[in-house]
């Protein structure tokens, strides 16, 4: 029975909006988040190039390659669709297999090597960065679906296979309705929808909604070694995300010019000072402001000023509420989901035989937004 068409406005509407703030001053590019997501969700045949979560070195080519080129979304006024470019298989990189059996488990001297010479792949340009010694610079940029408020992907699908969840705005792609047309892949300026060439459908980050529904934050966030990510409602005035985005204005959206209103925000990297040929600090920023403006818009200059002002306070022995917030002395303060965590589901997974959890989380007072 054909499914009745739903109003696009209905699909786009949500009562609240979950989001994330990532502090790029703390990301060490360890890829734990990448691996957490990949092992949890995208290990099937057809998903070789699928990294719902990936960490890129910036400056860099991005993943898939070619993210810098005009690439989807909307005109800046948010009114008209802009056609993106569909990445080629080469833009994601070569897939290859190693000859484990021959090289490691059979007699002989076979060289341990991939069957196809790799020419590109995820994180290929790791740590390459830019700049001229002694002022080379780079930072790590973890990227995932932004679960946008004005998502071009939802608007693009002629089958209404994409929608935002009513309760929290997570953007989901119905695997039954999808026919693999990939207008959504064209439309996403961040290329965070992936083509599964075996299932012949498009797939994307689900913001770990089965965990979210148990009050547990996304795998990428909870596994993060550097405690980089705040997860919570961006529209809740009590959430740390709201404070970082709207009060302090140090958390900025990525590539805001594409008009999709992303809900994943970044605290820009302050980076060490530039030095002269003798290694003496010059008082200038090492990462060119113009580069950061390309990524995060015009708010990045004031955001860096605020960060440096607040850092200065702490260096002088004064207190700073912003630095207190960003330091994250309690891991669980990172996660302020609408639903209180089901600790049995979460910490029970870490418990050894016997079932005793290793952590006893403090009580959370429900915010006004809890259902």
């Amino acid at each position, binding site marked *: 029975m*054909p*499914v009745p068409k739903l109003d696009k406005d209905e699909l786009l509407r949500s009562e609240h909006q979950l989001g994330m703030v990532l502090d790029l001053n703390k990301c060490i590019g360890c890829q734990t988040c990448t691996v957490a997501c990949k092992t949890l969700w995208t290990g099937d045949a057809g998903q070789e190039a699928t990294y719902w979560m990936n960490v890129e070195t910036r400056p860099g080519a991005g993943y898939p390659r070619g993210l810098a080129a005009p690439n989807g979304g909307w005109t800046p006024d948010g009114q008209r669709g802009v056609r993106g470019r569909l990445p080629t298989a080469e833009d994601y990189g070569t897939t290859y297999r190693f000859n484990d059996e021959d090289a490691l488990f059979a007699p002989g001297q076979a060289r341990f090597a991939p069957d196809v010479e790799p020419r590109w792949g995820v994180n290929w340009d790791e740590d390459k960065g830019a700049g001229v010694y002694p002022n080379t610079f780079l930072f790590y940029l973890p990227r995932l679906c932004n679960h946008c408020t004005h998502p071009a992907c939802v*608007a*693009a699908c002629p089958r209404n296979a994409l929608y935002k969840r009513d309760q929290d705005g997570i953007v989901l792609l119905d695997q039954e309705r999808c026919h693999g*047309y990939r207008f959504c892949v064209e439309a996403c300026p961040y290329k965070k929808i992936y083509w599964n060439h075996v299932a012949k459908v498009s797939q994307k980050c689900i913001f770990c909604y089965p965990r979210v529904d148990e009050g547990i934050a996304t795998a990428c966030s909870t596994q993060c070694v550097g405690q980089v990510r705040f997860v919570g409602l961006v529209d809740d005035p009590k959430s740390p995300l709201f404070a970082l985005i709207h009060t302090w204005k140090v958390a900025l959206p990525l590539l805001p010019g594409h008009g999709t209103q992303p809900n994943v925000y970044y605290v820009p990297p302050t980076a060490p000072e530039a030095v002269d040929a003798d290694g003496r600090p010059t008082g200038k920023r090492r990462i060119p402001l113009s580069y950061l403006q390309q990524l995060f818009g015009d708010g990045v200059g004031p955001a860096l000023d605020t960060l440096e002002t607040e850092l200065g306070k702490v260096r002088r022995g004064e207190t700073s509420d912003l630095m207190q917030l960003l330091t994250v002395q309690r891991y669980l303060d990172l996660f302020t989901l609408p639903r209180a965590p089901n600790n049995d589901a979460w910490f029970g997974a870490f418990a050894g035989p016997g079932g005793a959890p290793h952590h006893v989380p403090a009580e959370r007072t429900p915010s006004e937004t809890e259902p």
Partner: protein
Amino acid sequence: MQAIRVNVDRTALLDPSHAAWGDAPAQAMQLVKAPLAMQPSPWMQGAFEGLAWGALTRAELRLVHNGEALAARASWAVPERAERSLGANEFPDACAVMFPFVRDASIFMGAEDAWVNMWLWRADGHGPFAVTAAGIGTSQRVDDGVLEAAGAYRDGAWQVVWTRALDPGNGRDHVPLRPGTRWQVSLALWHGARAERAGIKSFSPTWTELEIAG
């Protein structure tokens, strides 16, 4: 056009070069670019405005039946064939024959009160699918093995054959077709090398009258 009766096994008819196809009268199908205005996609309305597609405007359709199964053969020229959908930017050549469930159902994929039934073939081996639809954006693929199809590329042209029982006994997913009756048929083509898929296609703007020989 006429679907003549032949005395050939259904499986044999799946070969587009079977002699029986030479006996079947050929219907020239004139197709047109599917209009962007019909796409229920606000983003596409802006992003695809002014772009060209739907240049495959000529195809040939033949239908035969053997009293138990109906077979259709479509052929169309396409210089660069596309058989893969491995890369995100790759789309296969495809073709669909469409019948209404209700006479004169909307040629634009039917409507809620008058569905349409398509036989979809893709060059990448996914399918074939019988499809039902009640309007643009509502198509549902039926993967029950009732429909069979095979394609061959020869001399710069695809030849695709579909076969299906005339009346598979599931009137909701498969429109019953009966010898000695008149019905309607149309065609759509997707040029894979030009990234055509979904509503980005060429299609028959009107139904072609079909006489199924008794």
